[in-house]
């Protein structure tokens, strides 16, 4: 009898513990008192499951301050959050850790109000001091944060003040057209974990891949669970995340996100095809076609999101070579003529590139902004179709002529030949080079293609300027033109055809400089847009870059993934990873 009672009591305790556990879990998935969760607009999902994706390389670090490589950023941004965030789908800003912000009429002071009840993924509460600490780190020259330049406005760093535990004021030296977009990409760091490393001057080395998960914390939807070198990195659900769905369920839905490391895009495709991974993004058109053929049978869906923000172009070496490289200097006499560059542009078969390189999954380009940039693209740019007649007319006007065998010669009788360098590892750009080679042959130009290893290519472009023409592509991280300002300012380090000029080499480059400076401080979007439209127009007229094509963003996902809304901006398929859920949990 006595034993019976003990047994009953034990059973009752067990049931109670189980109930308490269940309610505790349910509770942690409901907002706590004093918490201001951000409610998302997506479909209400169900908890559980794991998402497996592949990365083409291993991450180099888990430190958001020093990470520059793509795989590191892919992982870090699942574990981190910023004050104000750019919605990757609408391309507009939305509240994030800051629930609201105000900008003074003179555009110099930004007041941000933090969400209440925020906690890092280790449970430690966040306050304004963490934000102060984070910006102190980003602004510290000794840390060499890659984002530091973005916080220098009008030559002076932004300063941050704390009004109270939830309110911060950012002071700028002059108005900044980018406005609150500025805050996107600055991960808020946990002071309690990183302050010591920072004081010791070791912040750049902190948070390597060898750091135990307990010493890492962020404000993103996931946190580190395990890292197996050479194989995978697994993130687990952050139980303190600050977003909820429409029914008040705390996000994220998924238990885990696993990143597998594979060596190449082909390997990514094969793993996805075999069902080892659930998502694939940024794949090329050929692989897209291979995968699309089997989507019915294999239970996944491929989608074409339309043009992204990548633009590919050809440009000529317009550097001042200062007496060096006489071979190239001689050819620069052609490259420097606007008519020559316009003729090149007129001879380019952009439709051919779209068809042969991208199997039709791209758009031809005549300006630096792609149709994927909904806010800034100048719709009034001329888009002339290919015309060899017009190209010949332009060349004739610039003093070129043709020998009897069709060879193009300049006014001194020199045959026009040049080489195009490009990255050997980029099959798409090598294909473009082969198409251009044939296009220009029809004008009587002899073109050689020189595939180079990427680092060797960069050295030629930026250091010794030992090249004649180059095919390259740039991928803008955001739609705002300021992210590419270093490409268009004549003093900019990425002003590819002639970087880092002491003063503008041509009147049109000077005009672009002036327009860019003005849009930087203009307060109204319409005003900035008008100025930037003019920049696009000048570029299209002078053709320092002959724009070729912009590929569509191609993605694939296993069927049954809810809230899957891939975007054409950075973070593509994972930008809303906290909302993703499995309709039927896939067997694995």
């Amino acid at each position: 009898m006595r034993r019976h009672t003990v047994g009953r009591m034990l059973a009752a305790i067990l049931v109670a513990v189980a109930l308490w556990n269940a309610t505790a879990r349910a509770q942690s998935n409901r907002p706590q008192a004093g918490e201001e969760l951000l409610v998302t607009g997506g479909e209400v999902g169900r908890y559980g499951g794991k998402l497996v994706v592949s990365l083409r390389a291993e991450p180099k670090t888990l430190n958001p301050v020093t990470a520059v490589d793509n795989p590191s950023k892919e992982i870090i941004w699942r574990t981190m959050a910023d004050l104000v965030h750019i919605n990757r789908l609408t391309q507009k800003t939305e509240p994030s850790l800051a629930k609201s912000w105000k900008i003074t009429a003179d555009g110099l002071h930004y007041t941000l109000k933090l969400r209440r009840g925020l906690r890092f993924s280790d449970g430690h509460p966040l306050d304004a001091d963490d934000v102060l600490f984070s910006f102190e780190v980003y602004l510290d020259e000794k840390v060499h944060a890659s984002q530091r330049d973005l916080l220098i406005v009008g030559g002076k760093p932004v300063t941050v003040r704390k009004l109270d535990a939830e309110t911060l004021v950012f002071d700028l030296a002059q108005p900044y057209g980018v406005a609150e977009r500025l805050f996107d990409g600055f991960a808020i760091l946990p002071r309690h974990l990183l302050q010591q490393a920072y004081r010791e001057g070791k912040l750049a080395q902190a948070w390597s891949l060898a750091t135990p998960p307990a010493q890492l914390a962020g404000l993103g939807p996931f946190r580190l669970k395990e890292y197996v070198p050479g194989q995978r990195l697994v993130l687990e659900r952050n139980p303190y995340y600050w977003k909820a769905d429409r029914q008040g369920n705390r996000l994220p839905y998924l238990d885990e996100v696993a990143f597998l490391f594979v060596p190449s895009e082909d390997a990514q495709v094969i793993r996805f095809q075999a069902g080892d991974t659930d998502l694939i993004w940024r794949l090329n058109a050929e692989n897209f076609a291979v995968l699309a053929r089997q989507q019915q049978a294999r239970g996944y869906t491929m989608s074409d999101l339309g043009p992204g923000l990548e633009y590919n172009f050809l440009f000529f070496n317009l550097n001042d070579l200062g007496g060096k490289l006489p071979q190239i200097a001689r050819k620069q006499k052609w490259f420097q003529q606007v008519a020559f560059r316009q003729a090149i542009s007129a001879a380019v078969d952009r439709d051919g590139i779209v068809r042969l390189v991208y199997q039709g999954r791209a758009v031809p380009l005549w300006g630096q902004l792609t149709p994927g940039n909904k806010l800034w693209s100048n719709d009034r740019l001329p888009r002339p179709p290919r015309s060899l007649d017009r190209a010949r007319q332009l060349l004739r006007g610039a003093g070129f002529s043709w020998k009897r065998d069709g060879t193009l010669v300049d006014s001194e009788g020199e045959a026009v030949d040049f080489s195009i360098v490009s990255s050997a590892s980029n099959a798409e750009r090598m294909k473009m080079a082969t198409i251009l080679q044939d296009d220009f042959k029809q004008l009587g130009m002899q073109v050689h293609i020189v595939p180079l290893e990427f680092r060797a290519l960069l050295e030629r472009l930026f250091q010794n300027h030992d090249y004649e023409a180059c095919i390259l592509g740039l991928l803008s991280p955001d739609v705002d033109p300021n992210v590419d300002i270093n490409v268009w300012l004549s003093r900019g380090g990425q002003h590819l055809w002639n970087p880092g000029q002491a003063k503008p080499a041509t009147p049109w480059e000077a005009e672009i400089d002036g327009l860019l400076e003005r849009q930087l401080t203009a307060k109204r979007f319409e005003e900035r847009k008008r100025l930037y439209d003019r920049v696009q127009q000048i570029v299209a007229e002078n053709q320092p870059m002959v724009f070729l094509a912009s590929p569509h963003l191609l993605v694939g996902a296993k069927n049954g993934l809810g809230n899957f809304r891939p975007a054409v901006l950075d973070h593509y398929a994972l930008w809303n990873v906290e909302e993703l859920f499995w309709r039927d949990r896939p067997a694995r």
Partner: protein
Amino acid sequence: MDGRTKLGVILVVLAVLHGVVLFAGFFAPYDTAAQNRELPYVPPSRLHFVDQQGNFHLRPFFYPWVARAGSYGEYVEDRSRDCALRFFVTGAPYRIAGFLPARVHLFGADDSAPVFLFGSDAYGRDLFTRMLFGGQISLLAGLLAAGLTLVVGLLLGALAGFYGGWLDDVLMRAAELFLALPWLYLLFAIRAFLPLQISPAQAFLLIVVVIGLIGWARPARLVRGVVLSARERDYVYAARGFGASDLYLLRRHVLPQTFGVLLTQAAILVPQFILAEVTLSFLGLGVGEPVPSWGNLLASLQHYDVLASYWWMFLPGLALVPFFLGYTALASALHERVRAISI
């Protein structure tokens, strides 16, 4: 079949194969670089003799491939048009064996419907044409490099064998070093030192010289062995006794003994060096676009989508087979003959 006839047959077969490649311009219908941008990755044209009504045609014909509307790389045969293959047509200009300009091709089709016997590549270029012309680069590279190797090997081997002593030691140790080196990596290393920005012709010569200079060790060792035994023969001593110079002895008595070995070596080295060129070009270190070689024709197979979607892109690989078989058979036939003679 006795050894002599066998050798004759093999030589004729090889001559025919090389002839086709040498006169590629005549046998191929198009220019190697001509792009048909509307027709990328077209499957091989199917040749028919019997039309849809069941009538027999002496002249083969084909139905042109047309792209399926709104698709890329998907084609259907346009059965409403039968395009006859035409023979001895005038078409793209070329040079016979690289010298004489000409325009006559063995076969061709109307410009509106090109014939792609082996399909087309990513730019809509005729793969059959590119394969024949690609052979010119690959075979010539193999033959020239083998020639270069044999000359160097003969020279160094004869010196080492004839004079012996420290010269022999130095040369043979160097040969062992070259034998021990993994040649593929050595090729990479040498190619990496050389300028990248070169014309296809320069790239071709570079490959020949690089491959040719690396392979000298084996023939040199064989030649040395033969020379060592030849110089000890009684008639060589006799000739020396009569006051013959070293050069005379080498020329009249010693080197003729090495020819059998050299011929066999040549038959072994040529396919080996063709393969070396193919490997280098496959990896993008050979001649560049738009000049074809067997190696760079196969290079597109490095991409998964090509591997999975367009089977005809493997065809250039098959071109290697008859040549390699021919050379291997030649080497064994020569070996037998040499043995028969020396016995």
